[in-house]
């Protein structure tokens, strides 16, 4: 059997980076699923890409700008509407430091 691309520690590390708690079951599940995804993607390694520019963007565009001209913003009420926790003016979040 091939060496696993994703190990349990990798899943745990990703969980920490994403600030999500994972159960043992979930860790197993993601280990398998993420492994499969990476295995699929690794097919690309079979293609010879020497002398080929990486594709950063699918469209051959450059220098797309806007001018520095203000437009009206979204209202405070509208922007706070979907917040899980808020008061009249602010989004409320658990204190970090």
């Amino acid at each position, binding site marked *: 059997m091939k060496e696993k691309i994703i190990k349990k520690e990798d899943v745990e590390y990703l969980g*920490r*980076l*994403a*600030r999500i708690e994972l159960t043992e079951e979930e860790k197993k599940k993601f280990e398998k699923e993420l492994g499969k995804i990476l295995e699929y993607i690794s097919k690309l390694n079979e293609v010879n890409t020497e002398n080929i520019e990486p594709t*950063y*963007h699918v*469209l051959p*565009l*450059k*220098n*797309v*700008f*806007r*001018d*520095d*001209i*203000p*437009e009206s*913003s*979204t*209202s*405070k009420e509208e*922007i*706070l509407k979907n917040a899980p926790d808020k*008061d009249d*003016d*602010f*989004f*409320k*979040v*658990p*204190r*970090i*430091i």
Partner: protein
Amino acid sequence: MEDYEIVIGLEVHVELLTKTKMFCSCLTEFGAPPNTHVCPVCTGMPGVLPVINKRAVELALKTAIVFNSEISRFCRFARKNYFYPDLPKNYQISQYEEPLAKGGYLEIDGKRIRFKRIHLEEDAGKLLHSETGFISFVDFNRSGIPLLEMVTEPDIGSPEEAEKFLEKLKQILEYLEISDCNMEEGSLRCDANISVRKKGTKELGVKTEVKNMNSFKSVRKALAYESKRQIEILKRGEKIVQETRLWNEKEEITESMRTKEEAHDYRYFPEPDLVPLEINDGWIEEIRKEIKEMPDERKERFKKDYGISDYDANVLISHKGIADYFEECVKLYNNPKVIANWIMSEILAQIKGKVLKKEEIPLKPEYLVDILKLIEENKITVNTGKEILKEVYNTGLSPCEIVEKKNLLQIQDIELIGKFVEEVIRENEKAINDWKKGKQEVISFLVGQVMRKTKGRANPNIVRNILIEYLKSLK
């Protein structure tokens, strides 16, 4: 202490003076009510598309040109991924492998402090912490404001040099109209990397990162404290821990953040929502033309054109707002030396070190000129002028309004002065008799009495002459 040398590198962020944010058309204005300059783009709603603010790129180019940095002809934005409540998208659009510019330098006292890189990114929101609870409040007005990050090489050799570097940097960025550079309002922020090593060694020592300084002075103090701390550790034969330390302004010490520091893993990758920047010579030349007179050039011109001293020129040019104010006044009243003196002694005393733009100085140039003209025309005394200046500064009224309201005009009217003289003579019989007996010094006393009656607004020479004539007529 003398056996060690200090090695400092700075990381400076400045908010660019654009009207709108980096990737959306919300206003950047400071001090607006919370969460009113926000939109789906700068609050990281799904499905939105950022579009680059051209002016922000131009301001970054201007900076790169002035510091002789090498501008990348082709560069991209990258996503810096991390989770924090002030970062709504959970990534910051920044630049990583392809910064807008590399290299360049800023010279202080003949020494070059080199830049490693200069790049564009967006600011995060602002967290306000509740005093008691476990809650923070998030204001996204600042989220998405264009930021220019400037990282120096570890070329700075002392805390004082770091402070000088920041002052010079600020002066230049103010002149270029790149940023307000107001550390208290957060439009300029500075973190420092610092290490120490035995003199003569080549290898760099273990460094710490110092954060949370809110003025240039506190940067100097924090670095002085930190370098001393590091040297003492080495002298005891112990090792320095590589870590982030926070400056505690109240206690004047640096403190370990004591976080479990898993190495940062930002998983940078090219920002797929933005297309690359291609910067050609034509564009660079266009921006170069925008660069007006820099501080040193202005100083020389002030000396040459206005005949003011090196010292005066230095004080006037140190802040662009003051220099602009000076020139505006000179345009209205061609007496540069007098204007320079008044700005340096009176206006700067009122401003009390707070740096303002020309328009923000509460005493309009016209008003300063009005005061100077009233003095020149002998309508008010110099001291009255100074009083009026303070009042105009504090009330915003025009000097003429104040002069009228307070009846401050110098009394020119000989008849009026004569009336006061008569009064004084009537009221000072004894003094008059003394004078008749030949006591000349009585005259000074009587002049003083008249001046008192006119509240200092009469011309003492005129008073003296009138008084003497009256006394002679009494004989």
